[in-house]
């Protein structure tokens, strides 16, 4: 799987350098960012599918893989923040289902106001994240174990409680619930961008690109997360608790608060994706999201996050999700036999990580 290497420490020997050394250092600083490798891999993959398939790079084609990547990007970014902070959340996927089911049942079964329903599931998600964080910090157990426990608890609840309440395992007829239209504007809608004036689009039949709400949310989450990680004190704390927790505590970083906050951030992401999925698909099942947590972690790792914590970036994680989305949909555009889909996916993801690492290694040589 993710054979992400630790960033090799800068070569110890200092080569002879003249006064231009300062420029090189600045260039190296840019190239050494965790997302550079992912960006290179994303460009390679985009070009590959753009040139080998007909619809991939056209506006209508791009609509699907941009949408597909978007919800993964949201989760990859929040999961990456948590991973930088040195923890994992295996309950993130199941939580997407939980929030969708809560809102879905409240609206379609109990006819509760849309915003009350949406906020209730947010409160529940944040509470689960809080419990995850407190359990990890108080028990000292690895977050693997704690959140694996939460995962199973949620899975069971998603099934048992939902069945008890609505006597079925999926929320249906959700689109006709009162207030659906309002919620749909925020979470399920899309805008159409006309790109028919572009020369290569002009020859194709359609130039309309749909940008779904999920994409705006993903961009917002990515920008906010980047700002927090790069520009705020909380960002420093996150890198510190993931890199060296004991030292961080000794220099006065509020470790407990930071980690609990990170788990709550992940829960927030799950809630957001839960809402985006619910309003877009107009249904939520007991199985929604189960197993998806694995892909969030893959996206973060492809985007340059270290499994050991302390290193990574939000933009990198979002690019990881973009790579995943492009590969997945590219396989479909390529008309490859869908029985082999996961095999292709695995090979291309490994390839992406290798390109990523190679670029990073080259960048380090520049320094």
């Amino acid at each position, binding site marked *: *799987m*993710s*054979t*992400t*290497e*630790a960033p*090799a*420490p800068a070569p110890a020997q200092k080569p002879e350098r003249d006064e231009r050394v300062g420029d090189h250092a600045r260039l190296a600083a840019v190239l050494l960012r965790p997302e550079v490798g992912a960006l290179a891999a994303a460009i390679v993959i985009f070009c590959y599918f753009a040139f080998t398939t*007909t619809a991939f790079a056209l506006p209508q*084609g791009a*609509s*699907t*893989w941009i*949408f*597909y990547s978007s*919800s993964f990007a949201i989760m990859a970014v929040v999961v990456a923040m948590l991973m930088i902070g040195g923890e*994992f959340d*295996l309950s993130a996927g199941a939580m997407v289902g939980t929030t969708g089911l809560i809102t879905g049942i409240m609206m379609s079964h109990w006819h509760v106001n849309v915003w009350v329903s949406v906020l209730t599931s947010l409160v529940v998600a944040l509470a689960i994240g809080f419990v995850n964080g407190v359990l990890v910090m108080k028990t000292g157990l690895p977050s*693997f174990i704690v959140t*694996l426990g939460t*995962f*199973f608890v949620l*899975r*069971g609840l998603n*099934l048992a409680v939902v*069945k008890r309440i609505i*006597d*079925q*395992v*999926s929320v*249906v*007829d959700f689109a006709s619930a009162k207030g659906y239209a309002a919620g749909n504007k925020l979470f399920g809608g899309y805008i159409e961008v006309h790109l028919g004036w572009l020369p290569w689009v002009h020859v194709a039949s359609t130039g309309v690109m749909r940008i779904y709400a999920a994409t705006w949310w993903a961009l917002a989450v990515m920008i906010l997360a980047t700002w927090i990680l790069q520009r705020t004190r909380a960002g420093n704390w996150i890198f510190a608790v993931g890199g060296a927790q004991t030292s961080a505590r000794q220099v006065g970083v509020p470790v407990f608060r930071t980690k609990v906050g990170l788990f709550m951030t992940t829960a927030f992401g799950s809630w957001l994706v839960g809402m*985006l*999925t619910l309003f*877009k*698909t107009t*249904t939520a*099942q*007991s*199985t*929604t*999201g*189960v*197993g*998806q*947590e*694995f892909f969030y*972690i893959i996206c973060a790792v492809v985007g340059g996050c*270290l*499994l*050991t914590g302390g290193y990574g970036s939000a933009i990198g994680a979002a690019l990881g999700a973009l790579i995943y989305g492009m590969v*997945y*949909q590219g396989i*479909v*555009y*390529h*008309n490859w036999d*869908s*029985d082999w*889909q996961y095999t292709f996916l695995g090979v291309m993801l490994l390839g992406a990580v290798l390109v990523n690492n190679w670029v990073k290694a080259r960048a380090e040589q520049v320094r």
Partner: protein
Amino acid sequence: MKIRRLLTAGVAAGLLVLTGCGASNSSAPKADSNSTGTTSASSGFRIDVITHGAPGDSFWDVVKAGAVQAGKDEGLDLHYQSDPDVGKQATLIDNAVAAGTDGLVVSMANPDGLKSSIQAAVAAGIPVVTINSGIDQWKQYGAITHVGQSETLAGEAAGQRLSDDGLKNVLCVIQEAGNVGLEQRCAGAKSKFSGTMTNLQVDNTDLAGSEATIESKLQADPSIDGILSLGGDMSGQAVKAVAATGANVTVGTFDVNADVVQNVIDGKIEFAIDQQPYAQGYMGVTAVYLKNLDGLDIGGGQPVYTGPAFITKDNASAVLKFAQAGTR
């Protein structure tokens, strides 16, 4: 460096194992078998229904509802249990025999795994009826009859229907990798379809993503003029994908829920093939009951088909209220 790399690899492997547990060993919580309380027993017969349905599968909820209703109507001491793990299902059968059941109703998703348990029950003089899956093995194992739909026959009916609609290039959307029944449906449809049929693998735990995948496929191949979906929830996503591309594509589906019926009424889905799971539960129990009561052999040595029943615009509104009540 080396140690750190080893550590990373170790963590990665651990992650793989753990999430692997989460994803593939998803049968863990399913292992709790799904049992109902007993109904009042006035006829004095105890009948055990043991299926391979996972808890939370809406399809099996309908089967169970049918079985429970038959138990009530016939005054049986009815026990319903299910486990998707074939080994555990076999144990449930052995338990029922040991508990002195008067009749067994069993679904055989994996006939080989149940063979010895069912044959032991038959040898002990307990009447057995298979339902849903197992149409090729019931006779050989000594069951009275089989109540269900042949997935192949149902697939063939769908393929015939798609041909009759004049379609040329149809997508068969499989929402669960490795499910034998789903593959049989596509294969059956392909065998009777006059045009080209391609399978498309999607993932029913990620409905929004599946919709995007179907949409991609429609764009990649504009000559696609039909989609055959194999599950109720996925057919809704197929309808959305068709709407998003604005293509002129006919959608047909297997299995029914209230949304599917509504889509049929609205003309967004051309037909839904219903194997009437409620009838499978009800008839299975009834067949065993009649054997106990009067030694009757329902089916007369042949399987009893519950499908494929077509739901189209003509009969959809009549079906809607049953679908909403969870019996269709």
